């Protein structure tokens, strides 16, 4: 009985803890930013996906280094670092005045603790990025040396991602609910299903962020997200996922818009494990059969860039490869005939996400024109898509946005879902990682060109970074190429 009355009492105060969200715009020191994917919890060490680092990295958690919007590795908790001539050891000098939000100071011991914890405790795929580390030595409270088992250019870059986040031994007890980092913000409240509230961390070592309070609000529906800004409910749309609505913001004097790039390659992936897609002629035919300009113009309102391989413009080894396997429907038909595949029917199993659903319809229409039948099967994302396409490889083609920085390396992983197996690419990737930065650029260029020529996948377009915001918000990032939505660069307009 007591339980029942408690239950009733809880109901009557109805959703008291669920989502208080609307009061943000009245506070001049607060800003409300709308996102589409909500974090399931705050623990990116054990929960996969992009939503958690998007909210927490650089804002609540910091690493030794960070990635700026031009793709450069910049100091963060490390003031500087020295790489040994054999490129096997990295000596970092740390900031002396940084501390965690629970009061513990940040020292070299935390670096050792955090890096080793990735190898021992983390439960997500990215933990393998730390495999190359063989030893972490604390030289002094602000000096730490990391030794690698082989030279790796990727390692320092990877330290800008979530695996590089610094933790405190007394702050990891309840990571899913209570994140403790050194960043400029601290999680103040969370309303499942609607919002997260960040408050400025008074102990922060760096400059005070422009906004004292940040409300991160989540809208599963892209139109609802747009409408929230149009009706003055929020201040920023972090990523406009309905690109045809951009003119609504551009033609309204209340808003600023930016259009840059992300490192999200929207890929039409081929299942290279089985016939007929293990035949390079078929893959080339499919690639040449799709007019990617038409696809970008219709599916994504022409916003975004065409890419010919798995490299965004911000990577140092970018070259324009859109000419490789360019649109040529006549040649595509010829290639299919050569391969003896005139009556091809393929299953296009896609996540039920806006960009995939729209792109798939264009892919189908285009491939029908070269005589290839396509059946589109939208799968619930993430659960079903991850299970049947990504894990069980039950697909012919799929469409997914690959958002991890420098994910071109996945083509060296023969177990990855696209089942691409090229000894040449694997060798070049290893050479690039081991070699000098110049050698890396040369090797990676060749990797990109090989993938394009092999039609290892069909790169539909590079996802644009579309931000719409109230005029009062300044410092909006042009490009979005790190895993984080970096709140520290936001300014108040005119200041």
């Amino acid at each position, binding site marked *: 009985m007591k339980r029942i009355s408690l239950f009733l009492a809880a109901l009557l105060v109805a959703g008291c803890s669920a989502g208080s969200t609307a009061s943000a715009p009245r506070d001049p020191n607060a800003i409300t930013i709308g996102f589409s994917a909500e974090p399931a919890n705050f623990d990116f060490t054990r929960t996969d996906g992009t939503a958690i680092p998007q909210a927490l990295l650089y804002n609540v958690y910091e690493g030794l280094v960070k990635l700026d919007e031009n793709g450069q590795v910049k100091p963060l908790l490390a003031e500087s670092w020295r790489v040994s001539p054999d490129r096997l050891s990295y000596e970092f000098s740390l900031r002396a005045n940084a501390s965690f939000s629970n009061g513990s100071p940040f020292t070299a011991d935390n670096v050792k603790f955090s890096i080793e914890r990735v190898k021992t405790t983390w439960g997500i795929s990215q933990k393998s990025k730390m495999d190359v580390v063989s030893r972490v030595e604390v030289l002094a409270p602000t000096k730490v040396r990391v030794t690698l088992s082989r030279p790796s250019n990727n390692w320092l870059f990877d330290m800008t991602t979530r695996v590089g986040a610094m933790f405190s031994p007394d702050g990891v007890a309840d990571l899913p609910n209570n994140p403790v980092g050194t960043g400029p913000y601290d999680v103040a409240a969370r309303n499942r299903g609607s919002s997260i509230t960040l408050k400025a961390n008074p102990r922060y070592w760096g400059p005070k962020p422009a906004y004292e309070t940040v409300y991160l609000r989540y809208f599963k529906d892209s139109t609802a997200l747009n409408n929230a800004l149009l009706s003055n409910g929020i201040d920023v749309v972090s990523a406009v996922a309905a690109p045809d609505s951009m003119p*609504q913001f551009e033609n309204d004097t209340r808003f600023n818009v930016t259009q840059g790039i992300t490192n999200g390659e929207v890929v039409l992936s081929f299942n290279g494990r089985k016939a007929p897609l293990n035949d390079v002629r078929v893959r080339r035919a499919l690639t040449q059969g799709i*007019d990617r300009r038409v696809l970008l113009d*219709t599916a994504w309102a022409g916003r975004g860039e065409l890419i010919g391989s798995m490299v965004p413009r911000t990577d140092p080894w970018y070259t324009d490869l859109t000419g490789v396997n360019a649109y040529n429907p006549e040649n595509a038909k010829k290639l299919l005939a050569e391969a003896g595949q005139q009556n091809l029917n393929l299953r296009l199993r896609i996540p039920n996400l806006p960009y995939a659903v729209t792109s798939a*319809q264009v892919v189908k*229409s285009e491939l029908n024109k070269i005589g290839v039948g396509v059946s*589109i099967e*939208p799968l619930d994302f993430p659960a079903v898509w991850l299970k049947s396409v990504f894990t069980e490889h039950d697909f012919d083609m799929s469409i997914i946005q690959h958002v991890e920085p420098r994910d071109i390396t996945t083509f060296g992983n023969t177990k990855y879902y696209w089942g691409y197996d090229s000894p040449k690419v694997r060798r070049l990737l290893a050479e690039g990682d081991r070699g000098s930065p110049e050698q890396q650029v040369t090797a990676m260029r060749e990797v990109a060109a090989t993938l394009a020529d092999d039609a290892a996948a069909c790169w539909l377009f590079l996802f644009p970074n579309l931000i719409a915001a109230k005029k009062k918000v300044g410092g909006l990032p042009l490009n979005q190429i790190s895993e984080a939505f970096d709140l520290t660069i936001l300014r108040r307009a005119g200041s």
Partner: protein
Amino acid sequence: MTLAVRRSSSPSLWVGLGLVGLVVVTALASFLWTPHDPTLVDAAQRLRGPGTDYVFGTDKFGRDLFSQVMVGARTTLFVGVVAVGVAALIGTPLGVFAAMAPKWLGEFVMRVNDLVLAFPALLLAIVFGAVFGADTLTAMIAIGIASVPSFARIARSGALGVMSTEYVLAARSAGRSRTAIAVRHVLPNIAGLVIVQSSVSFAIAVLSEAALSFLGFGTRPPTPSWGRMLQESQELLAVEPRLALVPGVAIAIAVLGFNLLGDGLRDRYDPRLEVRR
């Protein structure tokens, strides 16, 4: 008992028939001819306004809206036929059985029936979509199952009425089997009620498909469906309201048509009205 034919013409009936006829003719015509291929993407014709070439204009893929509406009518009818078919074919015999079976058994059947009623159509369709994969057929079978109870109830109460008439009592005393009575006397006499319920359920199925497609649990792209057209129109609503208007009006016509048809038929067939007015 004879079916009471109350009034030879009711405006609901004729308007309903007209609207439903429009949907049916459109759907049938789409098999023979559409002005354009409704799934063909054509960047050059993107977001064209209404004109002579494209009656309702084109969508963001450059696909002809009118052709999509035409083929969408097929989807709508398919949806209704499957859902109502499942519901009527299970529900009607079940209701008749419950009326003719021993009292305890009939009671039990109706209790189970009530239990199914507690699973709302949309909820069932979402769960079915999750279990068996989201597409039109799964959704409609779910909607159909959720509509079984209303058919069973109607059929049972109709059958109970028929069972107490003198000629059925006579037939029973003459030793006719229950099955024979059900087929010869009960089913023909409740047919009107079942048809009325079918029309109403059809409207509900059309609305449900629209809602499910809107949520992404319904018709798969690129098969034209009015519900999905609505969903796709959302981001352009402020700029191109016609993209939402066209499928919205189409849905309203179909639902209105089937509801009016149901009302009109009820006026003709429902014996209760005969007593009442």
